[in-house]
């Protein structure tokens, strides 16, 4: 980091560098903040005159990725669950997926005293799993996940030492959110990032957008459905051209193409520019997102057939596994990246240290 601060050639690439220049010495808290500001685009790796095989062997993207991973564990709540980050994320996710499917299988079998393969007919989901069970379980899990995110954020924010009053600077907070939601620092000033290879491309940014906004559309679909169900008293299933189904379909498509694209880019990525130890976490999250959207779309397509019961259970299992692993997997990068961007936006009005001319 002192090499970077003495060089500064990469200053124009992203917010991480100006943030670094505001500091003369780097405490652990500073490094944690800077690492979460990094979008791992690898521009600075290719531009670096000190990158290996130079004797300084500077590999900033990898160093920051390693620090990020450490912060995910450090901020995780409850602490014992942080161990999930250290283990292979893929194994954790898949194991969870399998166990959930099994649990739901047995649960529904008990509840109905019969098999899943006989369709109750015309997409009657709640015949498979009672509505209240579904809502109850997911509410508990969602509250738990929200709490875990909140604790993680509070830990990040207090370590950074900004104080919670700073969050009242609405314009700065909005700026930070815009930077996060637009993936501003993944575009490298409009030219795209050096990812997966040395030549610039916007593909990672677009696939991320598809993934994130696909996820949000699915979330919106569920919210609208909840609104229909509780306030309007309209019960699922909804028609193909109803708002929840349209939102969910569009989101599901985004959530298919996005993660698939990200996985493809990940396979082609120059391994020097990341932390190979995190592959499990990345792939596990991508796989779970993909499974969720795939099973969701299949469920929609086949909801009038005998396969509906099985698909519903698999889909709900996937969603449950996704929710449960959200605070202990790749998803948390969104929380800390956004928080770091908000902090950067607050900080950016402060001066940069250097020789004054």
């Amino acid at each position: 980091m002192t090499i970077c601060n003495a060089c500064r050639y990469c200053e124009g690439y992203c917010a991480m560098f100006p943030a670094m220049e505001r500091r003369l010495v780097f405490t652990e808290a500073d490094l944690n903040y800077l690492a979460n500001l990094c979008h791992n685009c690898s521009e600075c790796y290719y531009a670096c005159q000190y990158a290996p095989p130079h004797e300084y062997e500077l590999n900033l993207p990898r160093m920051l990725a390693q620090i990020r991973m450490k912060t995910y564990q450090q901020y995780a709540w409850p602490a014992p669950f942080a161990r999930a980050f250290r283990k292979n994320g893929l194994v954790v996710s898949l194991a969870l997926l399998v166990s959930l499917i099994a649990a739901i299988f047995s649960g529904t079998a008990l509840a109905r005293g019969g098999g899943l393969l006989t369709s109750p007919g015309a997409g009657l989901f709640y015949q498979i799993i009672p509505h209240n069970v579904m809502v109850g379980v997911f509410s508990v899990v969602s509250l738990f996940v929200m709490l875990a995110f909140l604790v993680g954020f509070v830990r990040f924010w207090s370590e950074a030492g900004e104080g919670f009053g700073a969050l009242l600077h609405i314009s700065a907070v909005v700026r930070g959110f815009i930077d996060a939601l637009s993936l501003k620092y993944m575009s490298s000033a409009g030219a795209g990032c050096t990812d997966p290879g040395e030549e610039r491309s916007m593909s990672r940014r677009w696939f991320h957008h598809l993934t994130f906004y696909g996820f949000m559309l699915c979330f919106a679909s569920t919210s609208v459905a909840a609104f229909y169900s509780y306030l309007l008293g309209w019960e699922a299933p909804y028609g193909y051209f109803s708002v929840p189904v349209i939102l969910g379909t569009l989101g599901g498509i985004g959530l298919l193409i996005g993660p698939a694209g990200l996985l493809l880019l990940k396979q082609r990525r120059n391994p020097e520019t990341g932390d190979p130890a995190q592959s499990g976490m990345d792939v596990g999250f991508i796989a779970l997102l993909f499974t969720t959207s795939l099973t969701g779309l299949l469920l929609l397509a086949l909801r009038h057939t005998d396969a509906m019961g099985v698909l519903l259970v698999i889909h709900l299992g996937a969603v449950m596994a996704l929710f449960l692993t959200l605070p202990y997997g790749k998803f948390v990068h969104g929380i800390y990246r956004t928080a770091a961007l908000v902090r950067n936006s607050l900080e950016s009005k402060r001066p940069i240290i250097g020789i004054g001319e």
Partner: protein
Amino acid sequence: MGNEADVVERYPSFDVVVAGAGNAALGAALTAAKRGLNVIVLECSPWEFRGGNSRHTRNFRCMHTAPTSVQTEAYGEEEYFADLMRVTGGQTDEELARITIRQSPECFDWMSRQGVRFQPSLGGTLHLGRTNAFFLGGGKALMNSYFAAARKLGITVFYDTEVIGLDIDGGIFRSVTVRQKDGEPFQIQGKALVAASGGFESNLEWLREAWGPTADNFLVRGTPYNKGRVLKLMLEQGVQQIGDPTQCHAVAIDGRAPKFDGGIVTRLDCVPLGIVVNNRGERFYDEGEDLWPKRYAIWGRLVAQQPDQIGFSIIDSKVIGRFMPSVFPAIRANTVAELAAKMGLPVDAVLATVDLYNRSVIPGSFDHNVLDDCHTEGLTPKKSHWALPIDKAPFFGYPLRPGITFTYLAVKVNSKSEVLMQDGRTARNIFAAGEIMAGNILGKGYLAGFGMTIGIVFGRIAGRESARAAAQ
């Protein structure tokens, strides 16, 4: 790159052979290849260190008449030329200098078309925000863009390829002899040669010839591959030389820097904020003579003239945070005596120097951004500005060594970048661009970013003219 011998077999003769692979070389190669010519670039470094000293640069000095996306105000031809006259003391070829200055704005556009991106001046370089256009990501990013453009144009690039022979017959270039690593030498024929392979600053034996054994204590700021082979071969084959063969541009850098390739991060900007002593504990020059950006370039020579070619900058806590951080931590101590001992200096001599200096300081209002009124009286050498007593613990020190940036010895060229032979004739198909001919324009001294401007302007001229020569 595949089997390189096959490539040579397939193209027994290239239209344009470019020796070197920095800013000037790629400027020439891209320009010639855009005209449909078959171009080969010979780079003696491996792929990872390609781009010569251009990979260590960060900007080029660019004339402009109105504010641009990355440069403020205006910087006109006459002011630019006056700046050049000031630093060179008139040792410049005015025709070539004015060509360089006038063509610099179109180079900005041309570079942008090659995929090079620019940014406003970096933190800590505000003094260059008007005169210089900064490359986003620095010189290595610039070179990456050039090489990507070269690949699209089908330019052949050989790495690890050293030019060991030149066949020049009666002022006409025929072929180069090259060697790759431990392989057998082979020849590459060409219709025109562009020599853009830099100076000899990393050739330690050559430096020793010029400087004697003191050269052993010099550090080379840039690439270890600028050995001046092509320069020497050309001079041996009857090309006219220009520029002082013994001179090099050297700045004072951190004495703990690596022998080669330390680049920008080894520079030290704290000199004007304290005092500098030699290894006898004595001051030897006015540290506050002028603003640091105007003075840093003389400190390489000043330190080179000291015993064992080493100096020590001493500052106190008052000035921390007022200069760009350097890559090496300062040597730190709670007393001046302890600091001197830690740096291996004679303690009593340093104490006496600091004491005398402190007593000579006339208090004023300190401002490191302007030529302030803090100076010494009755002290030799005096300190003209930014003189504050060194009295606030902890104290900090940095060792200083001369760090060579480039050499001035060059081949003589005309406005078409054609080289001139010793018998006065113009070589028909031999061109030179970049540091290898910069001595025509920059006889001494330096202007930040001007080497890159010479490189790209004459690189493009050499590309155009070599394409014309090769087509005949």
